[in-house]
């Protein structure tokens, strides 16, 4: 293991992974892999989770393709340094924030979405220019195997390495030093990962789970709410970290909700759910037994059928669930939806806040005030109102937990930021040492005042703009006065050009005779007046253009220096 990490690190140190072109090329290769080997990948996922190929495609592959496309499009923009605002002291310097790769990144994936939860972080890590060690979950072993087989065929083999293995290998892996660790999984293992990271001061992103509540207000379209909840809850057989874990609603709604979910389940998965190709199975026997134990002593409103041989658990709804029972103590991660009756929204908020911060909160309501209240007075990784799961699908939103549901966020630009170090850079010139005298000891009161002035004055363009305009006017006037002759010539030329454009030429003869006709006009007072107005206008325009285009900064700087000298704390100088 140590050797493997060493190999990846030396590949990173070669600097190969840094150029933008290389990153884009690797991402394109990754996309090619997904497109060319789609069948193999889908088959692997299907065999791990009993997932239909269509589900595997729409839940996993599409998300990743979308992410790759987004990154390919935006990466050139993301990698460029971002200029930072300066103060008077650093006005003439270059200040910017340069994103740079961190080094060797460890990504530990989860089994419930074995492709998305390993490849999506990988995309961010590659985009940021890192070397990556990828550790897919050993529970989804077919996907793990196919990734180990395919990735080296498409990506740089030294920079991006797949390591497979169980708890032992992961423990060994975590002993190594990484520059970043992104872990997706359970809270308990999250703590182990962070403890290991602390030994090397490695920053971590932890994507953990939690019990995501779903509050249904009585003022909402219950039909639609139940359809959406049914979809989100039983997606991937409930094995989704952001699935609505339990429903909070007023007691009177309970029966209606049960009825509507029951109908929707029938609509989605047919009369016999067990035979539906769209319904998955529980990943392994251990989880199957765990979920089974959650059902003990509960009032099953519908569902509850199980089959150990195929690890099938039917879509189940529990009613009047006591918050103290086991099903309300741990993340369910299975197709069981407990309904906990609460008196009103305030009680629901209290209920949510008494527990650990969840990964997501869902609210169904038409009442905007209530929605605002729910969002304002709770905390969670993300929120979706009047729908479930959808905030995950939007790569412009950061995806991550808070409190016991994790730390850090990724997706889209946030992945790039997660795997980048935002390095602040300030580049000065070695010239103008005279101006730096201010900060060198020995010190005096006047130096303090000056420094204060320089540091505290944020260079605000608004304040100076009026004075600046006045100055510009003066400059323009002086220039006009000094270069009157030259400007007049130029003005005449421009006037001629304009004049020509306005008199369409019908024949060659006219063109030849044109200059003479102009000459004859030159003498008239009318023309002279026009000419004057024209050239003054033009020269003012020229001056303005010139300065705004090339010298705006310079003028502002010299002018502000001038202002400082005259309106700064100069009087102190004379005292010292």
């Amino acid at each position, binding site marked *: 293991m140590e050797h493997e990490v060493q190999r990846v690190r030396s590949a990173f140190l070669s600097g190969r992974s840094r150029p933008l072109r290389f990153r884009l090329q690797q991402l394109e290769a990754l996309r090619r892999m997904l497109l060319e080997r789609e069948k193999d990948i889908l088959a692997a996922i299907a065999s791990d989770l009993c997932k239909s190929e*269509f*589900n595997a495609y*729409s839940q996993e592959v*599409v998300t990743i*393709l979308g992410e790759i*496309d987004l990154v390919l499009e935006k990466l050139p923009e993301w990698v460029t340094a971002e200029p*930072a605002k*300066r103060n008077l002291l650093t006005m003439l310097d270059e*200040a910017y*924030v*340069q994103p740079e790769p*961190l080094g060797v990144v460890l990504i530990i994936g989860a089994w419930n979405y074995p492709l998305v939860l390993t490849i999506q972080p990988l995309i961010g890590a590659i985009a940021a220019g890192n070397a990556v060690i990828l550790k897919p979950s050993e529970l989804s072993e077919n996907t793990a195997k196919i990734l180990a087989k395919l990735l080296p065929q498409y990506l740089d083999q030294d920079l991006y390495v797949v390591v497979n293995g169980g708890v032992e290998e992961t423990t060994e892996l975590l002993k190594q030093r990484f520059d970043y660790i992104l872990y997706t999984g359970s809270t308990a293992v*999250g*703590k182990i990962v*962070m*403890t290991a*990271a*602390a*030994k090397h*001061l490695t920053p971590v992103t*932890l994507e953990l789970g939690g019990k995501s509540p779903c509050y249904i207000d009585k003022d*909402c*379209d219950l*039909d*639609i709410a139940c*359809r959406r909840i049914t*979809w989100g809850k039983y997606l991937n057989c409930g094995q989704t970290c952001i699935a609505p874990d339990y429903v909070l609603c007023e007691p009177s709604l309970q029966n209606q909700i049960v009825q509507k979910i029951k109908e929707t389940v029938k*609509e*989605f998965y047919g009369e016999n759910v067990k035979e539906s190709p769209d319904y998955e199975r529980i990943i392994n026997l251990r989880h199957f037994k765990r979920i089974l134990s959650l059902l003990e002593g509960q009032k099953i409103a519908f569902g509850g059928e199980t089959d150990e041989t195929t690890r099938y658990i039917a879509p189940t709804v529990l009613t009047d669930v006591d918050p103290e029972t086991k099903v309300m103590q741990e993340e369910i991660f299975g197709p069981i939806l407990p309904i906990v009756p609460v008196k009103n929204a305030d009680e629901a908020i209290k209920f949510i806040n008494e527990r650990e911060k969840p990964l997501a909160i869902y609210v169904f309501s038409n009442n905007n005030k209530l929605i605002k209240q729910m969002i*304002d007075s709770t905390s969670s*990784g993300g*929120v*979706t*109102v*009047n*729908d479930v799961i*959808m905030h995950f*699908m*939007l*790569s*412009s939103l*950061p995806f991550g937990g*808070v409190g016991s549901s*994790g730390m850090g*966020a990724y997706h889209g630009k946030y992945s790039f930021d997660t795997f980048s*170090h*935002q390095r602040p*850079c*300030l*580049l*000065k010139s070695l010239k103008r040492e005279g101006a*730096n005298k201010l*900060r*060198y*000891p*020995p*010190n005096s009161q006047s130096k303090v005042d000056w*420094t204060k002035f320089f540091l*505290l004055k*944020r260079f605000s363009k608004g304040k100076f703009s009026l004075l600046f305009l006045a100055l510009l006017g003066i400059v323009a006037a002086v220039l006009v006065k000094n270069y009157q002759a030259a400007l007049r010539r130029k003005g005449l030329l421009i006037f001629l050009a304009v004049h020509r454009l306005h008199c369409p030429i019908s024949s060659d003869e006219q063109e030849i005779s044109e200059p003479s006709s102009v000459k004859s006009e030159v003498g008239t007072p009318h023309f002279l007046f026009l000419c004057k107005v024209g050239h003054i206008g033009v020269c003012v325009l020229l001056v303005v253009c010139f300065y705004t285009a090339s010298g705006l900064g310079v003028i502002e700087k010299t002018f502000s220096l001038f202002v400082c000298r005259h309106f700064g704390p100069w009087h102190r100088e004379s005292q010292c």
Partner: protein
Amino acid sequence: MSGTEVKGVVKDSRSPSTLGMDPFSDTLQRLREAFRSGRTRPAEFRAAQLKGLGRFLQDHKELLQEALAQDLHKSFFESDLSELILCQNEVNLALKNLHSWMKDEPVAKNLLTQLDSAFIRKEPFGLALIISPWNYPVNLSLLPLVGALAAGNCVVLKPSEISQGTEKVLAEVLPLYLDQSCFAVVQGGPEETQQLLKHKFDYIFFTGSPRVGKIVMAAATEHLTPITLELGGKNPCYVDDNCDPQTVANRVILFRCYNTGQTCVAPDYVLCSPEMQERLLPAMQSAITRFYGDDPRSSPNLGRIINEKHFQRLQGLLGCGRVAIGGQSDERDRYIAPTVLVDVQQTEPVMQEEIFGPILPILNVRSLDEAIDFINRREKPLALYAFSTRNKVVKQVLARTSSGNFSGNDGFVFMTLNSLPFGGVGNSGMGKYHGKFSFDTFSHHRACLLAHSGLEKLKEIRYPPYTTRRKQLLNWVLSFQSCTLL
């Protein structure tokens, strides 16, 4: 930089020395309840707190300056410049921008969510713990505090017990200016800090040494608390042959000796060619004489080492290599002269630890490549400096190394810019702060999507059973999503 010298009495800002089983639980309970009540969330409350902090800085400027002079022998100029002004600046910036920082940030939507409203809400984490060190005891306590308060958190501040004078002012005076139900200062040494860290916080912000940083991070793991660690490191300073030695010497010496070298971002050692070294030494001597006079010891502008332990450590380092400039020390007032060491071996102690004192070793490298290689073989530093009149050289050092911060042709002037994030990478820390970055550090960025409750027909396509037609439709819509972020 936590030491074991002083075991301060554990005190809550309100009730003096309660020596119960756990002196912190009451305080923390109180703060947590205050946060839960939601009173720290409104912008008005946050602004009032920030204004209070600003008033504290103005009203007690002399008190703070005296405390700093007592702790670190800091001249008023230095304490004004590096501590008070920067804090005031940060407070002003936060007050000015609070509303815009707090605003929900709308984000781009895709086809499926086109009619919904999607935004990022910045919400406070809850109870934040700020542990600050002794070298800039005001700055490194209050700068993170500004961010934490602006973000609407309740805050426990644990100033260093080593800078006693400032600790006292912060513990006794500062709470009077802030809402005491949402803010507390706790005092104590390493033992008390360990005990404090056993409690659950929602954010921990630590400034100090990598060694203690690991302890803090391990403690944070217990409750899965996100952290920012501002640690130190050996900051290299590369000097190219193409520069004016006097200018370089001025800048390097100034920033090396700033706060008597007890600065986490100070240039720790110089890398240059033997020829450049020959030219730099007289220039450095002249800079030291100009800055601190012929006898730096009597200069009011040079501070003293914080305590006996660090003094002993630094005195030991003076024996490394050959002393080219300075080298004097006096135990009685913990004085160490601005010192330049040459002929230093990489294996000597002075190159093994962060110096944190006015000692500057010069190491010789033959070329730029060797310098970059030298830097990359070591832990990632908090700051990296490169001096050259050739822009290409500076850019090359920047591109081929990694460090928390980078400064070309100057010292740590980037600290004065709150538009730049400040933070380490690798062994020099994680996370960043200053200005808006502080606010973001202490805020949870919560993804919010307010979907339209209608349009069920459109969303129908994602539901099973998946007929062939639905598959095609879904493929189409999703491929749309993947192509464009409308």
